[in-house]
């Protein structure tokens, strides 16, 4: 049974990477249509990934430089494997054991941390600037996200994702997005920061610091980071689906709900200009955190 | 033009002309130039140095430095000129009067070889890195010959552009 579980989780991981790349292509297409142009095919990211994977690599800056893309990939894949896709289905719940929300939040930081170490070793001046910005930005969006997750944990008296999904069963109005709207708002705003979507796009910042942390990364390194980022995005969509949209009863529902969540940062990205770093962090520490606190107080009062 | 009359009283003016309603031209000696610039800046309101340029009068054996000043309140330009010796071109820097003159003087030093005494950065290269010939804006510098020698022929003599394949060129080079 254990081996079968590992096998199915591995299959799901491959599917997650493919789905993430597909969503990336869709986002490029939608962005193009919003800018009144034709845009690349939706399979463009697969082509890019293959090309990057087969390019030559002749750069070395030390051990951490090699390990950082792996950290990124492992961080993304680990997050993905801890989130159940369909709760209750033995083939599609990955390795989600009880009490895993806290482990999960640790795992979500791992990729950023490895990236920070590797980029700092690459020696390019843009990389440490990007890393500093990324870590400060993380300190910004983690606060509202953790508050809203704590609200859900207290409300459902469990730290397991499966428990939270089970608590939302029985109709659309039992979903946490309706029962705890403020906490959901806080989490969905912090999702914008996690995805690096545009008002909070301070890490890559193409106009200022080239592309920030991965400036020195090329070819195969970049392809690992690319797939890590894709699967990490899918993991986050799945997590938000499980926490706020009542989970999924089958694969089709999982696709539909994650696609809806995927559209939210995409549409915000395409219509907004960019914050500076301190504006971005300050924003996360005021409005979304306030929303989260409102629900936290409400939970205590209702109880 | 009253400003020209004023200047004629105070300084030695070799040449003066009213070009347009908003542009006048004054030629003066090497010695009087800096007092004239200071007078224009401090007393007449020509606060801005627009640019410095240099003209090569090769027949006379002179370089002519042209200082272009701008009076923002009267909306009037004035060109102040002086001629210096071409053989050993040397002049006093004016970067203490207008700091932006430093870059213009650096460029003139690079392009014409005029030595501005007291300018701290004029020996640094501005756009010509590792220049190995006489300054290129002098009129006795043959730019076409230099280009042909350094960067190669533009096209074969026949007039029809027949480009050799790169591989043939490698072979030729290897045989040498």
């Amino acid at each position, binding site marked *: 049974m254990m081996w079968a579980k590992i096998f199915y989780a591995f299959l799901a991981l491959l599917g997650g990477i493919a789905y993430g790349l597909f969503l990336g292509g869709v986002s490029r297409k939608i962005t193009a249509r919003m800018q009144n*142009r034709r*845009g*690349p095919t939706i399979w463009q990211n697969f*082509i890019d990934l293959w*090309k990057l994977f087969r*390019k030559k690599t002749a750069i*070395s800056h030390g051990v951490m430089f090699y390990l950082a893309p792996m950290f990124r990939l492992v961080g993304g894949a680990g997050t993905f494997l801890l989130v159940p896709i369909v709760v209750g289905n033995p083939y599609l719940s990955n390795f989600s054991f009880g009490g895993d929300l806290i482990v999960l939040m640790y795992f979500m930081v791992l990729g950023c941390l490895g990236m920070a170490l590797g980029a700092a070793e690459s020696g390019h001046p843009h990389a440490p600037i990007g890393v500093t910005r990324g870590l400060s930005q993380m300190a910004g969006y983690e606060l509202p996200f953790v508050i809203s997750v704590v609200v859900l944990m207290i409300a459902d008296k469990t730290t397991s994702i499966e428990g939270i999904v089970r608590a939302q069963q029985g109709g659309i109005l039992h979903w946490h997005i309706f029962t705890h709207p403020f906490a959901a708002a806080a989490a969905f705003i912090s999702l914008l920061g996690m995805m690096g979507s545009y008002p909070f796009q301070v890490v890559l910042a*193409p106009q200022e610091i080239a*592309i920030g942390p991965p400036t020195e990364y090329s070819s195969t390194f970049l392809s690992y980071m690319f797939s890590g980022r894709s699967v990490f995005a899918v993991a986050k969509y799945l997590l938000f689906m499980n926490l706020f949209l009542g989970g999924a009863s089958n694969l089709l529902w999982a696709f539909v709900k994650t696609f809806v969540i995927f559209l939210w940062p995409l549409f915000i990205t395409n219509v907004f200009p960019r914050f500076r770093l301190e504006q971005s962090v300050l924003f996360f520490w005021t409005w979304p955190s306030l929303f989260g606190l409102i629900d936290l107080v409400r939970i205590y009062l209702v109880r | 033009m009253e400003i020209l009359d004023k200047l004629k009283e105070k300084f030695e003016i070799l040449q003066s002309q009213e070009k347009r309603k908003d542009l006048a031209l004054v030629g003066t000696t090497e010695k009087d130039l800096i007092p004239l610039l200071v007078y224009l800046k401090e007393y007449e309101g020509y606060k801005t140095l627009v640019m410095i340029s240099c003209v090569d009068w090769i027949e006379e054996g002179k370089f002519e430095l042209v200082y272009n000043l701008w009076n923002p309140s009267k909306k009037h330009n004035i060109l102040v000129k002086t001629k210096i010796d071409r053989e050993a071109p040397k002049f006093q820097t004016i970067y203490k009067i207008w700091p932006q003159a430093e870059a213009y003087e650096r460029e003139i030093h690079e392009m014409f070889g005029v030595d501005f005494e007291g300018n701290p950065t004029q020996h640094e290269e501005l756009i010509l890195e590792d220049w190995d010939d006489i300054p290129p804006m002098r009129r006795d510098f043959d730019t076409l010959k230099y280009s042909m020698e350094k960067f190669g022929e533009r*096209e074969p003599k026949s007039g029809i552009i027949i480009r050799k394949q790169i591989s043939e060129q490698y072979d030729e080079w290897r045989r040498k």
Partner: protein
Amino acid sequence: MGKDKNYFLNEKPEKMTYGGVFRKINDWARARSLWVVAYGTGCGSIELRPTFTSRFDAERLGMRMVGTPRQADVLIISGYLTVKTLKRVIRVYEQMQSPKYVVALGACPINGGMYYDSYNAINRLDLYLPVDVWITGCMPRPEAILAGFKRLQGLIDSGKADGWKKYIENLDWYRENQRKIIKNWRMPNYNW
């Protein structure tokens, strides 16, 4: 390290084994995912902006601008090259990872164009860098640039765009030409 030390890189980078089972797929993917390093050397870079934005939309061919040479596939020489710029261009080109392609825009890199008698614009680019596609015009319009990129895609698809291999094979020849005009190379070292 002294300031005036010559930093010409003389050792050749190792050759890449090109071919094998995936060769066709590789060429197909490379042709459809050209990332262009955002570096403009002359007046032609003004034509690249409409090419890459909404009006002409080069992204539908799979092309993208990237901000760093490490991730780029294509270097566009957009117009005249002075000696000072040529140093930087060589540096950018060598920092790009193989396979890499060079596209030259306009008349100036071909034979000097209107700057053929200039004292610091080079006359022929292919003495210093291997060029895969030339696009003529002064400057070429975005349509011409797109046509040039279609041609580059065709060359890559059929495996003929091998300027980067020639550069490594004939590095001595290129180095000698570069040394003729770049007297003193004072730049930090880099690996390629």
